[in-house]
Structure formats: structure tokens, C-alpha cells
């Protein structure tokens, strides 16, 4: 079974530039999560979807961040006008079918390392 894939793997920006991260979850997983992992810290949940619906985006840092999952499969996380404080690894994870008994287990992608200069 293919794992969670993410692209790009690395991104370097100047402050003020925009960037988008793409995630393809494991096939059949209806729940998708985006995490921010600053250097030397644990992952911090930003937003998660069940199918195409946003379930919780209360931890998205500001209106500079947005995430969509229009068809309930792939997802895009976008940062408008990046700041140095956004420097982190952005992880995508997915979980199996809600109600299937294993919905709490998350499978992570390799992440995108973002450096904002």
C-alpha cells in the first residue's frame, strides 16, 4: 500500500512570498490532517478534514494560512505572505475510515521543510 505523499519536499522563500504544499493521503483514508512542526518541537495540529469538510481549523495561525480538500482526496495547504516564524516542517497525515475502529491512528507523510528567509 502506498503511503502518504507530499510535495515539494523542500521550499525556501523570502518573507512576503506565497507557497503551497500538496498532500496525497493513503487511498481510502477519509480523514486528512495538516501539522506544523517547528524545529525541535512536536507536531502541532493546524487543520483536519473528513472527506472534503473542514472539521477543525481553529489552530490555523492566521488568515495567511488556508487549506482545502475539494474532492475529499488530495489536499493543499497554502501560506500567503510567509514570515520567518513560519519556518518549520509541514506534515500531512491520514487516518482510515471513520468508525472503522482504527480512526485514531494517523499515518504521516515525509513532510515539507520550509525555510523563510
Amino acid at each position, binding site marked *: 500500500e502506498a503511503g*502518504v505523499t507530499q510535495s515539494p519536499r523542500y521550499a525556501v522563500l523570502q518573507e512576503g512570498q506565497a507557497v503551497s504544499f500538496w498532500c496525497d493521503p493513503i487511498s481510502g483514508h477519509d480523514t486528512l490532517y495538516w501539522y506544523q512542526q517547528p524545529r*525541535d518541537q512536536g*507536531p502541532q495540529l493546524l487543520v483536519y478534514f473528513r472527506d472534503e469538510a473542514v472539521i477543525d481549523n481553529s489552530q490555523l495561525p492566521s488568515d495567511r494560512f488556508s487549506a482545502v480538500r475539494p474532492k475529499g482526496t488530495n489536499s493543499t495547504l497554502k501560506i500567503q505572505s510567509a514570515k520567518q516564524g513560519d519556518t518549520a516542517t509541514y506534515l500531512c497525515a491520514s487516518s482510515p475510515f471513520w468508525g472503522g475502529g482504527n480512526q*485514531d491512528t494517523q499515518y504521516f507523510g515525509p513532510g515539507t521543510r520550509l525555510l523563510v528567509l
Partner: protein
Amino acid sequence: GDSVTQTEGLVTLTEGLPVMLNCTYQSTYSPFLFWYVQHLNEAPKLLLKSFTDNKRPEHQGFHATLHKSSSSFHLQKSSAQLSDSALYYCALSDRSNTGYQNFYFGKGTSLTVIP
């Protein structure tokens, strides 16, 4: 609110000695607890997950016991191996009365095993 605490940031052990990484939590509901392992430049991978029936999960020689009375889920292994060197994250998942899930990761413990 909910939270996960890992008291040790860095742990260095000699190969063959026992491993114990601490994890305590606060949760409003009935959570699942997890241990994830993250090797250098890789994504976190699930190591263990708590069971609802109090069974002790085990994987790759690691085990952890959920103690609800002390809100702990410490990770243990009887004999450390060099390949165990990695970042270990304790994580919590619970579900509110409305059905929404909450997820929290601890700050992580960096384990280094030396010969």
C-alpha cells in the same frame, strides 16, 4: 485543557540498558494514547497505541501501559539497541461529546543509544 507532557528532552543510554521514556497527559474525555518514533529526516511513524481493554501494546520490543489513575503512558524496553536512537513523541487523541477529535503531541524525547 488537554495536554501531553514528556519530561525528558534528551536521554542518552548505553546499549543493552533498559529504556524508559516518560509520558503523562491531561484529558477531558477518554483518550487513546500513542507513541510515535521519528528517525532523522523521516516522518513520525506509529510505534504503539493504547487499547481500550487495558491490554499492553508491544512492538519491536517496546511496550507501554496506560495507567488512568496516574494519567501516564510511559514507554519501556528491556534492552536498548543502537537502532533505537530517534525522537519519540507521546500523543493523545480524544473525542468530545460533539464527536470532534482532539490531537496533542508532546514535545518529544530524543533518545541516543551509545555503544
